C-alpha cells in the first residue's frame, strides 16, 4: 500500500506547479489551465485522505469540486472569448482595468 505522504507530496507538487504557472504566465488560457492544475492537486489530497480514513466525505467533496470546475470552465472560457473580442489580446498584463 502506498503511504499517505506520497499522495500528499504529489498533491503539493501539483498545486505548486499550478500556482507558479498562475503567477508567471501571461496568457489567460495558460493561467486558466494552471487553475485546473491547482484544483486537481487539491482533489488528489481529498481522495488520498478519503482512502486513508475510510471516509466517503472526501470523495463527495471531489465530485463537488469537479462540478464547480466544469461550470467554471464554461463561464471562464466564455469570458476569455469576450475579453479577446473586446481587447484583441490574451495577455493578462494588458487586461488591467480593474483598479482604482
Amino acid at each position, binding site marked *: 500500500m502506498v503511504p499517505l505522504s506520497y499522495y500528499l507530496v504529489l498533491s503539493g507538487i501539483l498545486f505548486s506547479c499550478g500556482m507558479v504557472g498562475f*503567477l508567471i504566465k501571461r496568457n489567460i488560457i495558460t493561467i486558466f489551465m494552471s487553475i485546473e492544475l491547482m484544483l486537481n492537486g487539491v482533489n488528489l489530497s481529498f481522495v488520498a485522505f478519503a482512502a486513508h480514513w475510510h471516509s466517503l466525505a472526501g470523495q463527495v467533496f471531489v465530485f463537488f469540486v469537479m462540478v464547480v470546475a466544469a461550470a467554471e470552465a464554461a463561464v471562464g472560457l466564455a469570458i476569455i472569448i469576450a475579453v479577446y473580442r473586446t481587447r484583441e489580446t490574451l495577455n493578462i498584463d494588458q487586461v488591467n482595468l480593474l*483598479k482604482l
Partner: protein
Amino acid sequence: MNPFFNLWLIPILPLAGAAINGFFGKRSSKQTVSVVGLLFPGAALAWALWVAAHFSSPSLPYQEFIAHWIRSGSFTADFALYLDQLSLVMLLVVTGVGFLIHIYSVGYMWDDPGYYRFFAYLNLFMFFMLTLVLANNYLLMFIGWEGVGLASYLLIGFWFTKDSAASAGKKAFIVNRIGDFGFLIGLFLLIQHFNSLDFAKVFVSVTHLPAGAGTESLLTTIGILLMVGACGKSAQIPLYVWLPDAMEGPTPVSALIHAATMVTAGVYMVARSHVIFERAPSALTVVAIIGTLTAFFAATIGIAQTDIKKVLAYSTVSQLGYMFMACGVGAFSAGIFHLMTHAFFKGLLFLAAGSVIHAVGGEQDMRKMGGLRSYIPWTFLTMGIATLAIAGIPPLAGFWSKDEILWKAYSGPHGSWVFWRIGIVTAFITSFYMFRLLFMTFFGEYHGSKVDAHGRVSRRRGHDNHAHGEPHESPMVMLVPLMILAVLSLVGGLVGIGNRFEDFLAPLFGSVEVSEAAGETASRFAEYVLMGVSIGVAILGFILAYVLYVSRPYLPQRIADSLNGLYVAVVNKYYVDELYASLFVKPLIDGSTHILWQGVDRKVIDDTVNNAADGARHVSDEVRHMQSGNVRSYAGWIAAGAAGVIAYMVWLGVGR
C-alpha cells in the same frame, strides 16, 4: 400661631408681569404694556404693605415653605421664604421705591421703541430682587443675586446698538462674576462645615461652634469670601469700576438698580450674615476698612466729574461704602437704616437727574446746563430736597442715618477714631460735590444751546424724540414719583429718632447693640458733639460749593490749574480703569491670544485633528498602489497571504 402671609405672591406677581410683557408686549399697545407693567409690581407692593400691616413681631421670623428643590444626601435646599424685620425693611424698600420708579418710567421711556422690553426687564428685576430678599437660604438668595445681575446686564445694555452701552453691560456682568466667585466659595465652605445653607440652621450652628482659633479662622475666611461677593454686587473697592459705567443704561434703571436696590444687596447679605461676622472680628475689620476707603475714594472722584449721572454714580459708591462701614463696626441696623434712606434720596436724585436730562434733550454734561431752576421748578425743588438729604442737613433723612453711622463708627463695638475721621471728611466732600451738582445744574446761566439740544436727540433714543425749544418741565407721571420720594426723603429719617429703627431690628442684631449700650450712656455728650461736627461739615460743604460755583465761578478753574497733577488724576478717576486694563485685562487678552488661541487651540487641538486626517490620507495613498488592476499581482497577494496563514498554522502546530 403663625398667620399665613402667602409671601410667594410677592415675587411671583412681577414675574407674571415680566412674562406677559415679554411674550405679548410687542403686539400690544403701549397703554396695555404700561397697565401690565405697573399693575403687577403695584400688586406686589400692595401685598407687601398688607403683610407689613399684619405681621406681629413675636411671629417673626416667619418661614414659608413652597417646594422641595435640592435633596442630596443629608443636604437640602428648598424653595422657601423667610420674613423677619430685616427682610421686611428690604421688602418695603424694594417694592415701594421700585413701584415709584415704574410709574416714572412710563413717562421717561414713553417714546422708546423698546418700551415693552423695558418693562419686561424691569419686572423681571423686581422678581429676582424680591427672591433675593425673601429667600430663606443662601442658595435661593444666590439665584436672586445672579438674577438681578442678569436684569442689570440687560438694562445697562438696553440701548444695545450703542457700543458703549453694550460693553458697559458686559463689564458689569464680568466684574460681578469675580465677586460671585468669592461668594460661591464662601457658600461651599458653609456646606462643607455646616451641611446646610438655611439661614436659621447655619446661624444656630455658628453660634454653637466652640470658641477657638480654628473656629475664628474658618468664620473669618467665610466672612471675607462673602464680602468679596458683596464687593462685586455693591460696587466696593476693588470691584467698584462697573457701577459708573453702568450709567449707560436708561436713567430709571440707574435709579432703581444702581442706586436704590440691587447695589444694596451686598449690604443686605452682610447684615443677613451678621451672626458669622460677629464671631469673626477680623472679617468685620476688613468690611469696615473696605467700606471706609470706598466711601472716601469714590467721593473724591465725584468732585471732578462733569457728567451728572457719573457724579451720582460715584456718590452711590461712596454711600454704599458708608453702609459697609456701619456693618464693619458692628452697627448693622445703622447700615440698614442708611440703606433705606439712601434708597429714598438717591432714587430721587437719579429720577430728578433723569428729569433734568429729559428737560434739556438728552444732555448729561453739567457744564452745558445751568440756570434750569426757573425752567423746571418742580424738578429743582425735589432735587434740592434730595441734595439736602444726602448732604446730611437735619432733619432730612440722610442726616439721621449718616449721623448714626458716624456715631457708631466712633462708638460701635468695633469702631475707632480712624473710621470716624475718614467718614467725616467724606461727609464734607459729599456735601460739597452734591451742592456743586445742584449749583452747576440749576443756578447761573443756561449754557446749553437750544439748537444743540434739539440736534442731540437722536443720540438718546429713550426719550425726547419731539423737538426741543427750551428746557421744559417733565410730565406729571414723572413728577409725582419725584414728589413722593421727596416727601420720603424729608421724613424718612424720622423713624430713626430715639433708636426706634434700631429697636425694630433689635430682635436680629440685638446681641451687638447691647454690648455697646453700656458705653453709650456715658458719652451722650460726645454724641451731640459729633452730631454738631457732622452738621458743621455739611454746611461747610454747602458754603464752599456756593462760593466756588455761584459767587465766584472763575475760581474752580484756577484751583484746578494750581493742582494740576492731582486734578488730572481725579478727573481720570485715578486711572483705575487703565490700571485694571493693563494689570488684568491686557494680560488676559494677550494670554488668550498667544497661548490659548495660537498655542493651544491652533497648535495642539487643530493640529491633532489635521495631522490625524493627513496621516490617514498618506497611508491610504501608499496602500492604494496594491490595487494595480494587474490580476497576477492580486494572485500574488492572495498566495502570499495564504502562505502566511499556513506558516502560522504550522508554527502553531510545532509550538504545541
